[in-house]
């Protein structure tokens, strides 16, 4: 599927593969290879061919589709839209007389049609015959008063020739035609601009009654968009939600409703519409929906943070993770990754802190930022490395705000040795050693600081740092941790073991998406706690990232 918003001038065309992943195709490749092949494949399928040619016409490829449009017209001779498409293609390539002949022939054979008449008027206009264009345009409106382009064009002519009031009078004349509902949307917009809300609502009521069910998507877009942009959010929602169907009306209407709910701080209602739109499985909706998912999440976090006043003590617990979250302790999957029995002193790993540009001096409950995500992912990765490369029992400790406003704790200063040692000696942790991990993300390249602290006496036995270049194609995950691992083995007297053959961590540029996915899995896991569902922001992003991981790791693109 290609989107139709890729206009000439842009260097690429956006397409979606069967898994919904977005890909950009060079325009030249699209024009020279993809489009001709798609036309050949759909040569005998009028429906598919029409969609493809309409898209190509929208992209400005009229010169490439003349023959195909002619073929479609022959294939589907009784179709007004195929006639219009062929006529417009001919008009755009300068064959004005041919375009007019095709459309007149259709009208002579099949009778009047609003769209064909409108396009014939455009052809006359392109040929310089303004009087005939206008007369044909009015014929189009009389035959079908609900073709938006015709109304807009007619209104624009009146406005240009006689001023704004003439435009409104023209619309009023059109409103008097039988079954004329669309022009009422334009009259309502005029009423809104004149601050006459009740008049606008009356026009909308009439338009909806005349248009009947199901209400066309563009009608709801117009109503909700115009009311919303004039500040009448509740009115937009009242009309919009009464008629909205995610399947029928899609993103264009849904977007207006989400925005109205969002602006009214009705986050649950906004989320419900968001979920209904996600459920349509439309890849072309994804970037907009992801945007709203993030905005809603941010707004919710801001609301939660209001409740966490400095006077309120924040209840924090330590979530303990004792094996890779992606490797359940169940048969047969754990047989894929055989590991030795755990033996030796317990090692705790405590991260969730990062210093970065724009930090504030407090512990915050926040959205997933890259430093925040990595501050949790790095300890999980280190624990996983120790799990597979040693026999030591390892626990990653994740500070978690409990109570009404749950979420990750994200500190912006490293934990002190004393605090870490105190945590390590807690009854539910019972670790002899604790490794403090802190991310320095203030300046490039980022780095990770390690401090290995013995819980008894809070004595630091090792202090080290590793550089973290996120865009380094040669980044080796093992090198990142090797010095720290050696120090740990030396301090504890443990021996290194060979990791299971299947254990492999993506290196280079794929390492960061991998870390993000590991952390994403933990976020999903924690969201299963009672009352913690709200902590999950953009859950689809988490899975989509994991879905893209194999191709990122292979440094290739998924098949389009």
């Amino acid at each position, binding site marked *: 599927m290609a989107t139709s918003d890729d206009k000439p001038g842009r260097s690429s065309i956006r397409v979606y593969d069967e898994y919904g992943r977005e890909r950009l195709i060079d325009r030249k490749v699209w024009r020279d290879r993809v489009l001709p092949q798609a036309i050949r494949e759909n040569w005998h399928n009028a429906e598919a061919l029409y969609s493809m040619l309409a898209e190509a016409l929208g992209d400005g490829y009229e010169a490439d589709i003349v023959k195909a449009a002619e073929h479609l017209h022959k294939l589907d001779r009784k179709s007004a839209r195929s006639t219009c498409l062929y006529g417009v293609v001919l008009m755009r390539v300068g064959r004005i007389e041919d375009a007019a002949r095709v459309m007149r022939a259709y009208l002579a054979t099949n009778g009047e049609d609003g769209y064909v008449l409108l396009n014939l008027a455009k052809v006359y206009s392109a040929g310089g015959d303004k009087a005939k264009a206008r007369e044909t345009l009015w014929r189009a409106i009389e035959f079908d008063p609900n073709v938006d382009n015709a109304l807009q064009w007619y209104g624009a002519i009146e406005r240009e020739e006689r001023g704004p009031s003439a435009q409104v009078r023209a619309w009023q004349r059109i409103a008097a035609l039988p079954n004329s509902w669309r022009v009422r949307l334009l009259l309502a917009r005029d009423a809104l601009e004149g601050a006459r809300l009740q008049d606008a609502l009356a026009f909308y009521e009439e338009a909806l009654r005349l248009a009947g069910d199901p209400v066309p998507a563009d009608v709801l877009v117009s109503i909700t968009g115009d009311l919303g942009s004039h500040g009448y959010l509740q009115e937009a929602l009242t009309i919009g939600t009464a008629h909205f169907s995610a399947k029928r009306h899609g993103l264009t209407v849904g977007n207006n409703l989400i925005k109205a709910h969002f602006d009214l701080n009705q986050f649950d209602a906004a989320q419900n519409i968001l979920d209904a739109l996600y459920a349509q499985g439309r890849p072309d909706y994804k970037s907009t929906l992801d945007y709203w998912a993030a905005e809603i999440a941010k707004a919710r976090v801001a609301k939660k943070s209001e409740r966490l006043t400095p006077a309120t003590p924040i209840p924090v617990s330590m979530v303990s993770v004792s094996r890779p979250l992606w490797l359940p302790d169940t048969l047969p999957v754990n047989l894929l990754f055989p590991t030795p029995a755990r033996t030796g002193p317990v090692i705790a790993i405590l991260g969730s802190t990062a210093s970065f540009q724009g930090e504030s001096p407090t512990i915050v409950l926040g959205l997933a930022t890259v430093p925040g995500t990595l501050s949790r992912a790095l300890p999980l990765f280190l624990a996983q490395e120790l799990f597979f490369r040693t026999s030591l029992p390892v626990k990653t400790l994740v500070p978690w705000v409990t109570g009404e406003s749950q979420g990750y704790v994200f500190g912006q200063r490293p934990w002190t040795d004393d605090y870490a040692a105190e945590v390590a000696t807690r009854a539910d942790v019972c670790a002899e050693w604790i490794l403090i991990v802190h991310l320095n993300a203030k300046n490039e390249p980022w780095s990770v600081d390690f401090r290995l602290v013995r819980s008894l006496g809070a004595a630091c036995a090792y202090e080290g740092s590793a550089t973290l270049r996120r865009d380094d194609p040669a980044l080796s995950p093992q090198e990142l941790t090797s010095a720290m691992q050696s120090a740990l083995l030396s301090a504890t007297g443990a021996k290194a073991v060979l990791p299971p053959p299947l254990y492999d961590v993506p290196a280079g540029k794929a390492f960061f998406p991998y870390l993000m*996915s590991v952390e994403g899995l933990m976020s999903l896991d924690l969201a299963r706690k009672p009352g913690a569902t709200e902590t999950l922001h953009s859950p689809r992003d988490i899975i989509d990232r994991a879905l893209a991981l194999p191709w990122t790791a292979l440094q290739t693109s998924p098949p389009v």
Partner: protein
Amino acid sequence: MILVQSVVAMKEVDSSIASEYRQRLERIRSQYPLQPPVDRALMGMTASLTSD
């Protein structure tokens, strides 16, 4: 493994999203067959997705 376990975890958070991605997993599985032991193990992980 991360992908499969993420979808499994999603089931308790939002079953409709989990169901959507389970179908994607099945499509990927049919297009990129895995070695039988790995396939069996992953199918074992996803067993909970198809039971209610």
